[in-house]
């Protein structure tokens, strides 16, 4: 479904992603694991096309030079240079890290804003789906998003991504900063979303809660892929244990 070949991303002369290749197959949950500044967010921004927008804006004001090399294919089609809105139309959507929602709008309005590109009549169904996966959001739908807790905002951020009716959902560190109970609830939600036929690519720093549900994981360090395997293989790998479980 998603194929990344020899991806390299530079900010000025700093290499953020180094010759990275990975594949995501339809219906799977794929994890990208790595510590802080390993390149996870840059990778997500590159797949979602946000980096194309950032590059355009930096170029305009003569700011930081951003270079993207390599190839990103979605369903066989080269999307390396397409803008984010085109990718959302094709079914790729990113739920950004640290749950950035629209704080002055209500939960329901946040979800509505996310349907911007949709012209099909099934928006109501998407609302129902989001409220089934995250019943808490339904209770909070009249509350301003800025007044919701971190966990609730995280649910909302994912809910917003779901409102675009994605085929590939990118989640950047969805578990960051959440309580263990909240993490477990999100893990359940991620499984439910997959069961609905959405393919998932998720990044995480602390892999422990995530490893049991991922079909394949990629471990990256300083923008370089250092290890890959199924969730189980990674769980049993002593290096991963030491680096990411703190064991």
């Amino acid at each position, binding site marked *: 479904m998603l194929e990344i070949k020899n991806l390299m991303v530079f900010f000025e002369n700093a290499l953020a992603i180094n010759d990275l290749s990975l594949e995501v197959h339809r219906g799977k949950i794929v994890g990208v694991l790595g510590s802080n500044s390993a390149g996870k967010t840059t990778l997500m921004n590159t797949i979602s096309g*946000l980096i194309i927008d950032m590059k355009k804006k930096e170029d305009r*004001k003569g700011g930081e030079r951003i270079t993207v090399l390599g190839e990103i294919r979605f369903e066989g089609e080269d999307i390396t240079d397409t803008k984010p809105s085109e990718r959302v139309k094709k079914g790729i*959507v990113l739920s*950004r890290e640290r749950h950035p929602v629209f704080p002055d709008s209500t939960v329901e309005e946040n979800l509505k804003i996310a349907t*911007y590109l949709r012209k099909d009549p099934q928006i109501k169904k998407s609302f129902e789906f989001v409220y089934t996966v995250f019943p808490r959001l339904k209770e909070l739908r009249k509350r301003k998003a800025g007044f919701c807790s971190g966990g609730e905002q995280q649910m909302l951020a994912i809910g917003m991504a779901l409102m675009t009716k994605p085929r590939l959902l990118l989640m950047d560190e969805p578990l960051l900063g959440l309580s263990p109970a909240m993490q477990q609830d999100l893990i359940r939600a991620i499984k439910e979303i997959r069961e609905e036929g959405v393919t998932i690519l998720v990044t995480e720093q602390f892999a422990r809660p995530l490893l049991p549900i991922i079909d394949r994981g990629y471990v990256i360090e300083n923008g370089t892929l250092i290890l890959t395997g199924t969730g189980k293989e990674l769980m049993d790998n002593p290096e991963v244990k030491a680096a990411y479980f703190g064991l």
Partner: protein
Amino acid sequence: MTTSILVYGLVNSVILALIAMGFSLTFGISGVANFAYGGFYLLSGYLTWMLLNYLGLPFALAMLITVAVAGLLGFLTYWVILLRVRGIALSEVIATFALGAGMLEFFRWMGFVTYEFTLPCFMKGRVEIFGVPLDYQRLFIIGIGLALVIFLYFFTHHTRIGLSFRGIAQNERTAISLGIESDWTAALSLALGSAMAAVAAIAILPLGIISINVGYDVLLIAVAVGIIGGLESVPGILIGSLILGYAQVITGMYLAPEWMMVVYLAAIVLVLAIKPSGLFGKFKELEERV
């Protein structure tokens, strides 16, 4: 005396709010401080005048065409002029200010400076409110101000484009990641802001003659109200207008009318010195922008 201060202060406040709203809306959504705002305002006045006097169009039609043309010009301003300097706040201000001054001076060059340039009132006549005589045009201005606030509320809460405006205004990158286009939205925000300048012009200009200086004054008003209330906040604009509107009327009555313009400038200096983001504003970099 007190009642007339109350009534005329309110009218004056609504006038200021009408003038400031378009400017602040554009800034709130796209971060563009559209310093060509006065140019758009005056262009709308002259355009309506030309449509009425050269083409003999009915007033309602002339108004509609003017609002549409102003909107279109705002839209084009973004793609043709602003796109190249987008993100460099100072260049945005300089480019739009030059454009606005160019528009205003163009009309001066055309010789649009005599007393014949006036727009008709919607309806002639007056009423008395608490013993204070008030003409219908000023009543209409209050009505239009109210209608515009209600329209804006509905537009930004219940339409797809309006919701996308709020998305971009609150968190641009998240909005982009959901498929909303920032350039497109910014261009539309300029279009809407300019169209609102046209609405304000058509409502307010019948109170006096259309003169070039009005264009510069309007920009000053928009900036002053925005700075006091906080540029991106609608309640801020309304309260900023009320403060300035009443302060002006009181100054005009107790001091002298020529001090009324000083009120804006004093208010700008005071607010920037004490609370630079405005009474209700959130933008910390406001003082850098304006």
